[in-house]
């Protein structure tokens, strides 16, 4: 099963469509807009990443924590829960699921100090071990005990013929400690072929993969498609990083350059190898036997995620193409004004208020009007 994604619980039970996702949000949508929920999605992935780093979790364990978190909120609502406690339980459980366990006590102490500190200014967070352990218990149940999560990292490395992550230890997915054991067959594509990218390019795709966890992509698409989209995105989408990527790209293939690659016109090629690069990439991706329209939708989602993320005041991607993304975001989606910047404290406050409003609604159901109408009213108010 470790190599058989198609037989995995991940594929069989945890890939959902957009419609299911929206239905799952119904309750929260009474207290927040779609966009606000998406912002919270970006936000909590950032929080998980921060906590994960404090706990010494590897990138893959952090990614697993995020997936747990998103799966949990397929069944539950922000307005019924304490997402900070939930995400701490996600990190704690993922640390064990990924065989890099942390102490219960460590998890709660680190979480508490992070959340009640000035970054988030959370007023209340348990200091009691058993509260977190209880949450873990419920979480495991809501996850239906499916703890094995597939990530794009492996596809990315396999596709580039790498054994080890292209980033320094701290950020790496880190299969590097054990002997790499990539002895399984590929579960996607044709199983042949390799992209010969240089470190810089792979690294960039790697960071894009990291960033995809800020969106719902991990619930919507199989990881290998996300990997392909991330490579595509990192290589061809935005012009400024394109030239940076181009200069670090080299393809070993001896195929003569062809004119098939329309994408090549995106960047201003500096060397003849660069032209080949675009073409080769197209050929390679075409040969993967993955659906290009799907890849295109994933890329759309990545763009949308980056433009949302740019509205947040903390933790934005610090890698090169980020600044160009901001420009990209403006031209591609709704205009983003600088004064729209959202702080973590504001988002923390917002999610808290969602819960308080829900609690008030439950405690004092307005007698005359049917709840549904009332909720709609609430929502208009909230939006206004």
């Amino acid at each position, binding site marked *: 099963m470790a190599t058989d994604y198609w037989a995995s619980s991940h594929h069989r039970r945890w890939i959902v469509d957009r419609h299911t996702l929206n239905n799952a949000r119904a309750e929260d949508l009474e207290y927040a807009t779609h966009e606000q929920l998406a912002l919270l999605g970006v936000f909590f992935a950032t929080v998980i990443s921060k906590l994960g780093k404090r706990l010494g979790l590897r990138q893959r364990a952090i990614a697993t924590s995020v997936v747990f978190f998103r799966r949990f909120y397929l069944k539950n609502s922000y307005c*019924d829960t304490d997402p900070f406690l939930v995400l701490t339980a996600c990190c704690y459980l993922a640390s*064990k699921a990924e065989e890099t366990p942390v102490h219960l006590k460590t998890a709660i102490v680190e979480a508490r100090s992070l959340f009640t500190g000035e970054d988030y200014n959370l007023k209340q967070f348990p200091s009691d071990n058993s509260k977190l352990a209880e949450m*873990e218990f419920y979480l*495991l149940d809501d996850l239906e*005990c499916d703890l094995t999560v597939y990530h794009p990292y492996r596809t990315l490395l396999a596709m580039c013929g790498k054994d080890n992550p292209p980033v320094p230890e701290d950020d790496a997915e880190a299969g590097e400690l054990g002997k790499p054991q990539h002895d399984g067959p590929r579960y996607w594509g044709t199983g042949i072929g390799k992209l010969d990218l240089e470190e810089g390019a792979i690294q960039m795709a790697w960071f894009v993969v990291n960033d995809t966890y800020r969106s719902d992509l991990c619930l919507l698409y199989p990881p290998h498609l996300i990997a392909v989209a991330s490579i595509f995105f990192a290589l061809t989408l935005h012009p400024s990083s394109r030239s940076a990527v181009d200069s670090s790209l080299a393809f070993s293939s001896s195929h003569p350059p062809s004119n098939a690659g329309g994408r090549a016109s995106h960047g201003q090629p500096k060397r003849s190898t660069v032209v080949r690069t675009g073409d080769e990439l197209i050929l390679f991706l075409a040969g993967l036997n993955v659906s290009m329209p799907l890849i295109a939708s994933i890329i759309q989602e990545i763009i949308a995620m980056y433009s949302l993320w740019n509205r947040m005041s903390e933790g934005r991607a610090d890698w090169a193409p980020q600044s160009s993304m901001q420009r990209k975001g403006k031209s591609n989606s709704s205009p983003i004004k600088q004064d729209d910047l959202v702080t973590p404290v504001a988002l923390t406050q917002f999610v808290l208020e969602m819960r308080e409003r829900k609690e008030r609604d439950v405690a004092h159901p307005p007698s005359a009007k049917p709840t549904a109408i009332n909720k709609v009213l609430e929502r208009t108010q909230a939006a206004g």
Partner: protein
Amino acid sequence: MLPYDPMRAYRHKRDAAHQAFNTKYAMLGFISSGTYGRVYKAKTRDAEERIYAIKKFKPDKEGEVVTYTGISQSAIREIALNREISHENIVALREVVLEDKSIYMVFEYAEHDFLQIIHHFSTTVRAMVPPSLLKSCIHQLLNGLVYLHTCHIQHRDLKPANILINSDGVVKIGDLGLARLTYSPLQPLYSGDKVVVTIWYRAPELLLGARHYTKAIDCWAVGCVMAELISLRPIFKGEEAKLDHKKNVPFQKDQVVKIFEVLGTPSVHEWPGLPQFPEYLNMKALDNYPPKLTEWCTTRFRSKDATDLLRQLFMYNPENRATALEAFNHKWFSEDIKPTRNAFHGLPPNHCPPLRKITQDEASLAHHVPASNNNNPAYNNPNSKPASWKPASGQNFGSAFGVNTAVTMQVPAGNNSGGSRKKPRLE
């Protein structure tokens, strides 16, 4: 006013939706007490009354109060792996019920296990396991192991008590509590668990202190199990050296000698990596033993092919050792007597092992350890784990960078090498 509880609504919703374990299953009796919990026989409370084995992980206690203390690494592993796999020769997990701080894993029920078969033939039948049963058992065991290894799962605790067989004679590998996914591990296997595999079944590379080990350790254990089914006693029955006060794993001299006595002292020629092992010097200090496996075999059976399979599984160099697949395809299995899907096929009735004994549960007695309740008193404590098997709250908390910080070693009650295990007598 109640203390602030942001999860109240959630908990309420979940508890209301929960279907209580007791409304779904009725416990019929107690089967076995392991390191982490207890195994029960249960039936469904519906018209079908299907039978299951329930592995219940006990909640931890702080004083007298039962609290949530975090789910053990072992339970997490067993649950995570079982949810992904499905094979005729692996015990199937039907569902997991989380309730009242306890975890109930509901497994398909298996009436027998290899330990019980060995015991039955050594004490009741007082004869060797018939070749057809032996061959079917090993063949199906290998079939399950091929599947696990294809899934990149190392079992790491294969031994007779963990290999079950149902009343239809179908072998079911159980107890994935030590098993691990080896596909791009985040931590080297060694730093997670310093000691794996119960000592009698532990491969030489582990005994010599290997940091990197492979699926081949499971194949060694299969060799040990096969030999035990043949001779009705563990082939390498060493005394386990205890962890020292610094919790270092000592050189398992006695176990190594037991292996050398049968297989001879390994040479650098057959195992070039030998001098690199941490325990190489300790090993060099031992006497030189000549190989005696052929002798061991010919005094017990005639099949040359069986001897060859054992030899392949007992290769010192893990790289030369038969893989599960190679062993599964070994010519012994296509020799005159063929393995059967029902391992009990054609057995005289008195050769069939008895039904699993169950006793009434005394779970209410908090510290009751029912050694005498075990269905195999002669094999007291067959479920013990390797000595460093870590208890719920004492996992390896080595940091994510693979540094071993605190490792809580806990030797399970009753000495895990099964010192109290009676030697089956074989005339």
